[in-house]
């Protein structure tokens, strides 16, 4: 049998064409004894790193190539013979992609001239063009072949004969190639389905686009031998042997320009670090910190990461100098160097740090620095990076968007010809479905027969499609910056957003190849904090920075202990609030724990209660002795952080820090892949050697396993705890300014503006309504009195544009508005904006009640130049004023909130007659007592994790109430449950650990009560 190397093969990164993953392709190539496998995705290297990994795993050499189709019909497969060839191909792909819209490419013959180190396979069309062949032979001298691709067509023998004759005539050697779209014939159905999806049609109607058979797979060498003369097969191996390029030859260099002349990156980094240390510790850094920094700098130098740190420092420096708040998060906060450079804010003198969690020698993987910026100003940072390094050298990382179950079912069902509403139903029924669970029940619920052939076909194809890449998108903020043009390293293409370019590799690809990236992330809370600090400064209430906010303030902790945390970063959710009164945070480190512990993982892993018991003193905690002393003391013996697990391994079982980091990574992945057993034995042996009992070692290991799914670095928690504390302090001491900043930084956090404002009012701060005479676009403070008053901004009006809001501000600054006409004219308001203002009650001061405001506003005409200065005079008419309920409804409709009475208060007496409790009464009801409650439905939430249960949040004039509706109740009261605005629930109050729920038993729709409030008469007497 002849040897064979497949030189023309697509992976799923030829989107909706390639139907098998690189892993499958390489496994098949190995099984068939291929000499090599080329991955030649269409004008793309997006799948090449995965192919590289699969090649490493199987030992089948990878040939890097790409398939190119020109608009004139020329069809080529280009293979990288050498590093120069790879760089040339990166350049070609980048040119083709940058010229076209996202997802497309456009190349011409001129782009393919003078590519050195590139081998070309010409794939002739059905009617081969001699001229094309001659061009290929000329353009790629000694490097061009005619690819003979036979797929059991109508007359392969004749085709082969013709192509060989043509090759002979053109002086091109002929070579066999497979145009493989899948690893095995069994993928034919999926491949047909992908084709139909790509062509936006159904498989039944896609005939012209479908391949006639399943021959485009990695065929066995025996089958190939029956089709091709052996010379053509031998030629594939010869070509494969010429291609010596491997991705391991890529060398990546971080930019050097940040280092001044006469300095090296190492000396400059040390200089900046020492400069930073003098600022951080004016009286000299503690000795431990100095040692830590020396150790870090040595490792950074050893691994050659200095320029990376300098780049991040430069970005952070830019942000600081432009007043943009920023703060590093994640594992970088384990680095004292990062703290000294101002990248992170967690003081190494204040907390134990584990640098190895950030950088380790053994990991052979670049560190990852994530920096949060104010979400409204991150774009400035991104544009700074583009401007500084140029688009050639800086680009965003890609994110591969893959098929999820819902989208897979949707696309497959469409391709199989189901009607639009069936497609909807089916994808909804199967969203979040996993193969472990029988889909039958879900299907029957939506009226599908699970046993029908079509349903079965959809399910099995959707499963094959699951996790297949669908398209490239941009990463939220991961930048790759390089000394050389990036396009010598990886192709660059356009993102969907204008002014954005992305490389064709994602985060995992970068990790595999050891490329460094810096994540510039957006964080709403930073925007809020900056706005709050600005407000305080403007109103003379203090000039703070995040660093100068007084720390360890008892009043702030007292507030937190009462779960009074609406708006506070990270600890404002329902679950967090319920835990605050029991954890009773009293110092900064308590916040670090609070943020890490109140998360789904630790709660499900039952970490919370042991910790609580020990903290409350009801369970004794004996600090550990021996080498593990101190590791778990700060969390009372419960391993909460990734760093602690690493330290357990280091101190307890003699792991090196790098090995401990591998253990951490193993933990994160074992549920999916397994592979913890080697660690298990080593841990046990190590603990034993250090004198710990076997059962203790087993317990630690079990904890590590249980811990796996929610690993949280302490450094990350600490970074977030800093922001949580800052926001809590501001909420405690400057509630009005803090609420205003929250409103002005929307959308962020857990609560809607309505809840933020209500919370503020409950704390005794006065709130003034939106009024064009006083309101800015943003919420503002009236700080004349000692107790500031919040003035709602025009931004609260749904549908109002910022431009219009700013025009009103500016026109009013010149001169107060005389009347509605004056306002509309000087602020250049169009009919829609005028109506919005009237509806929102913002014209109260100028025009009177809403009915009058609407009449006035509707009568404003665009003044023609001729009549300028002659306002139309109109006699006033009498209109009945709106009722209080009318006003409240209008408030809700236009701003989602109201300063007036709560709508439920209008029907309270009728609710009381029906024996309905209010939310505050419900909160005083005893555990287990049956009550009836009615409130406005704020949201219905069906978490993917909790099957069969819906959480409902209801609200009345006294507060909110959370109810749980189980599936059988939801089904029995299906319509009431889905349709009610004012929902009444009969149920039982349950309280666990301070969390209160109303468990629904039956429901009733009281919405008609609200409709009767609608004053618009419909009766004809």
């Amino acid at each position, binding site marked *: 049998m002849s040897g064979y190397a497949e030189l023309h093969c697509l992976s799923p990164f030829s989107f909706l064409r390639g139907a098998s993953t690189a892993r499958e392709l390489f496994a098949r190539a190995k099984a068939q004894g291929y000499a090599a496998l080329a991955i030649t995705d269409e004008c793309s290297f997006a799948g090449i790193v995965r192919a590289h990994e699969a090649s490493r795993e199987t030992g089948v050499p990878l040939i890097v190539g790409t398939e190119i189709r020109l608009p004139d019909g020329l069809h080529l497969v280009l293979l990288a013979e050498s590093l120069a060839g790879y760089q040339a191909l990166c350049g070609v792909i980048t040119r083709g992609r940058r010229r076209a819209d996202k997802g497309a490419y456009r190349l011409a013959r001129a782009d393919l001239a003078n590519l050195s180190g590139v081998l070309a396979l010409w794939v002739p069309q059905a009617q081969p063009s001699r001229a094309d062949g001659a061009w290929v032979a000329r353009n790629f001298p000694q490097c061009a072949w005619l690819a003979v691709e036979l797929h059991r067509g109508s*007359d392969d023998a004749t085709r082969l004969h013709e192509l060989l004759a043509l090759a002979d005539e053109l002086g091109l050697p002929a070579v066999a190639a497979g145009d493989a779209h899948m690893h095995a014939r069994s993928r*034919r159905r999926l491949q047909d389905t992908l084709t139909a999806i790509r062509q936006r049609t159904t498989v039944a109607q896609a005939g012209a686009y479908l391949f006639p*058979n399943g021959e485009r797979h990695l065929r066995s060498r025996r089958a190939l031998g029956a089709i091709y003369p052996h010379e053509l097969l031998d030629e594939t191996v010869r070509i494969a042997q010429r291609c010596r390029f491997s991705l391991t030859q890529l060398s990546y260099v971080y930019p050097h320009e940040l280092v001044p002349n006469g300095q090296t990156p190492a000396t400059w980094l040390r200089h900046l670090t020492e400069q930073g240390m003098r600022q951080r510790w004016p009286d000299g850094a503690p000795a431990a910190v100095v040692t830590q920094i020396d150790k870090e700098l040595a490792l950074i130098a050893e691994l050659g990461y200095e320029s990376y740190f300098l780049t991040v420092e430069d970005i952070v420096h830019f942000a600081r100098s432009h007043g943009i708040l920023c703060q590093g998060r994640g594992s970088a906060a384990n680095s004292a160097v990062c703290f000294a450079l101002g990248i992170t804010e967690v003081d190494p003198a204040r907390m134990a740090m584990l640098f190895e969690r950030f950088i380790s020698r053994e990991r052979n993987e670049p560190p990852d620095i994530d920096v949060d910026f104010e979400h409204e100003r991150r774009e400035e940072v991104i544009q700074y990076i583009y401007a500084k390094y140029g688009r050639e050298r800086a680009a965003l990382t890609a994110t591969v968007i893959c098929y999820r179950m819902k989208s897979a079912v949707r696309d497959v069902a469409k391709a199989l*010809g189901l009607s639009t509403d069936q497609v909807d139903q089916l994808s909804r029924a199967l969203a979040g479905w996993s193969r472990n669970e029988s889909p039958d029940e879900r299907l029957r619920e939506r009226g599908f027969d699970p046993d029908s052939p079509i349903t079965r076909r959809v399910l099995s194809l959707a499963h094959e499609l699951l996790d297949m890449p669908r398209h490239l998108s941009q990463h939220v903020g991961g930048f790759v910056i390089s000394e050389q043009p990036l396009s010598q390293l990886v192709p660059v293409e356009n993102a969907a957003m204008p002014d954005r370019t992305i490389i064709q590799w994602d985060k995992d690809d970068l990790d595999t190849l050891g490329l460094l990236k810096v994540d510039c992330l957006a964080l709403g809370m930073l925007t809020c904090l900056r706005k709050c600090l600005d407000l305080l400064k403007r109103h003379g209430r203090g000039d703070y920075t995040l660093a100068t906010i007084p720390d360890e303030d008892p009043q702030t902790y007292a507030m937190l202990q009462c779960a009074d945390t609406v708006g506070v970063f990270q600890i404002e959710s329902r679950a967090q609030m319920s835990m605050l009164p029991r954890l009773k945070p009293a110092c900064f480190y308590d916040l670090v724990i609070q943020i890490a512990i109140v998360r789904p993982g630790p709660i499900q892993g039952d970490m919370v209660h042991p910790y609580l018991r020990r903290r409350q003193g009801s369970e004794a905690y004996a600090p550990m002795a021996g080498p593990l002393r101190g590791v778990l003391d700060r969390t009372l013996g419960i391993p909460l952080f990734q760093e602690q697990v690493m330290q357990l391994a280091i101190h307890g079982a003699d792991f090196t820090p790098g090995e401990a980091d591998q253990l951490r990574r193993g933990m994160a992945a074992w549920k999916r892949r397994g592979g913890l057993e080697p660690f298990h034995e080593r841990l046990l042996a190590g603990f034993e050697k250090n004198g710990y009992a076997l059962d203790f070692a087993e317990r630690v290991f079990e904890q590590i396993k249980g811990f796996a799914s929610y690993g949280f670095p302490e450094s990350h928690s600490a970074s977030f705890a800093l922001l949580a504390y800052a926001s809590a302090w501001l909420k405690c001491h400057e509630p009005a300014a803090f609420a205003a900043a929250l409103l002005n930084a929307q959308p962020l956090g857990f609560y809607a503006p309505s809840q933020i404002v209500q919370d503020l009012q409950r704390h005794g701060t006065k709130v003034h309504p939106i009024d064009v005479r006083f309101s800015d676009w943003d919420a503002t403070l009236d700080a004349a009195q000692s107790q500031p008053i919040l003035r709602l901004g025009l931004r609260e009006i749904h549908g109002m544009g910022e431009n219009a809001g700013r025009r009103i501000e500016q026109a009013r600054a010149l001169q107060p508005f005389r009347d509605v006409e004056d306002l509309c004219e000087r602020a250049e308001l169009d009919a829609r904006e005028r109506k919005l203002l009237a509806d929102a009650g913002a014209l109260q001061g100028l025009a009177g009640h809403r009915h009058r405001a609407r009449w006035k506003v509707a009568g404003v005409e665009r003044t023609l130049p001729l009549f300028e200065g002659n306002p139309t005079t109109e006699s006033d008419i009498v209109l009945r004023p709106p009722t209080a309920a009318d006003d409240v409804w209008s408030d809700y409709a236009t701003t989602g909130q109201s300063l007036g009475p709560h709508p439920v208060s209008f029907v309270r007496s009728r609710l009381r007659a029906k024996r309905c409790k209010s939310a505050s009464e419900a909160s005083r009801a005893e555990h287990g007592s049956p009550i009836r409650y009615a409130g406005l439905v704020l949201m219905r939430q069906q978490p993917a994790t909790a099957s069969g249960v819906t959480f409902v949040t209801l609200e009345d004039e006294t507060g909110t109430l959370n109810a749980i509706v189980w599936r059988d109740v939801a089904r029995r009261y299906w*319509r009431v449950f889905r349709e009610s605005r004012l929902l009444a629930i009969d149920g039982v109050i349950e309280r666990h650990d301070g969390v209160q729920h109303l468990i629904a038993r039956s429901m009733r729709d009281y919405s008609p009560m609200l409709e009767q409030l609608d004053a*618009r008469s*419909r009766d004809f007497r």
Partner: protein
Amino acid sequence: MQWAAILLPDLALDAVRRSGVDPHAPIALIAGPPQRRSVQSCTATAAQAGIRSGQSLAAARALLPKLITVDYDAQRTDALRDLLVAWAYGYSGEVAVLAPDALVLEVGGSLNLFGPWSAFERRLRADLADLGVTHRIALAPLPRAACVFAHVADGFAVTGAMQAALRRVPLVQSRLPEDGLALLASMGLRRLGEIIDLPRAGLTRRCGVTFVERLDRLLGHVPDPLPLYRPPDRFEAKIEFEAELRSLEGLQFPLKRLIGDLCLFLFARDGGVDAIELAFLHDDCAPTTIVLRSPAPERDAAQWFGIARLRLERLTLPAPVAGVGLVARELPPFVPLARGLFDAGAAAALDWPQLVARLQARLGDGAVKTYLPAADHRPEAAFTTDASVSSRILTGPRPLWLLPRPIPLRDRAPHILAGPERIESGWWNGREACRDYYVLETSVGQRAWAFRPAGAIDGPWLLHGWFA
């Protein structure tokens, strides 16, 4: 003048119900673009289950999985409205459609004939109930006012104090343009009287000229010209014989006349028809009717007569013919065939559509079809007679004669000329083909197209077609 208004609040659904579905079934009419299909109206049973108009189809299905959905069909609704207008024309010479859901008729002149209004109204309601049409009726001196009253109070009749009654009408039910009403309602105005009292200039500035014009028409302040109904044009003619005809030969003369009259009428109207209905009347039994069709609108008498004669040749009549009638409805515009100035027209030559028409006339509608290519790799699925789904696909040579189904090839040692051509396709509808096709020369020199299962190297051949 006295105007009766008949509102048809559920016309589209009535049209569906009349087509014979179970009126108690939960039915919803569905309309809208394919991505956002929503309920337009629904039956009472469906409404009880929570189905509402405006609901998305998915939401409706979720509420009631066994909901029967019917696509909204404007033509069906229009046809029912046309029928109702024609029916109303039987009661009054002045009938108009004021809105898609409202028709008005002047009844003042008909009261002598049909009794006092109460009796007249009962009669109208009885007719509408027989027709299966949901309705509301009111009487007023002005047509638009009558519509408004029918809307707010079914059965309301006013002759004298109409203005006072109008003033009491709730604003939202006054059938004035929606945007104006919404605006006025948002100013706290509730009844029509409050609008009437507003300063006219201020009202015009806010609600627009059209709105005020509609208000004035409603109140009778300005004339309200109505689009009065005219019965549709159609051609109908009949000839009755003095003596019964027993042979078809004798029918030729009267037929020629009728067709001639029709074509004259068509010429006068500058139109053509594509279908004619012929009725042969018998003394003792129901008439025999046949429909003649032309592929394109036609007004050439010779053409129509040719079509008629062909059809008559195949016709057997149950009884002697006492007369013949011709009806032509739906007169579409006539499109004359383009002809060269000097084209004398070959007398015997039929062009393609004419040939098709003749064949259809002789063999019956639907008996003449055209084979077209279909884009499918499976040979048995590679053709269609439905022009709307036809498209071409690039394949190798295919035999002209494809057998209806493959049969075993009885030949000891056929010679392989080409192949295998592998076809693996069609899995999506359970009729998957996985075959290797070969072009064979049989021992007697025929060229056959035969296959084996994909991948099979030997075994029996299955013959699927002949090249020659």
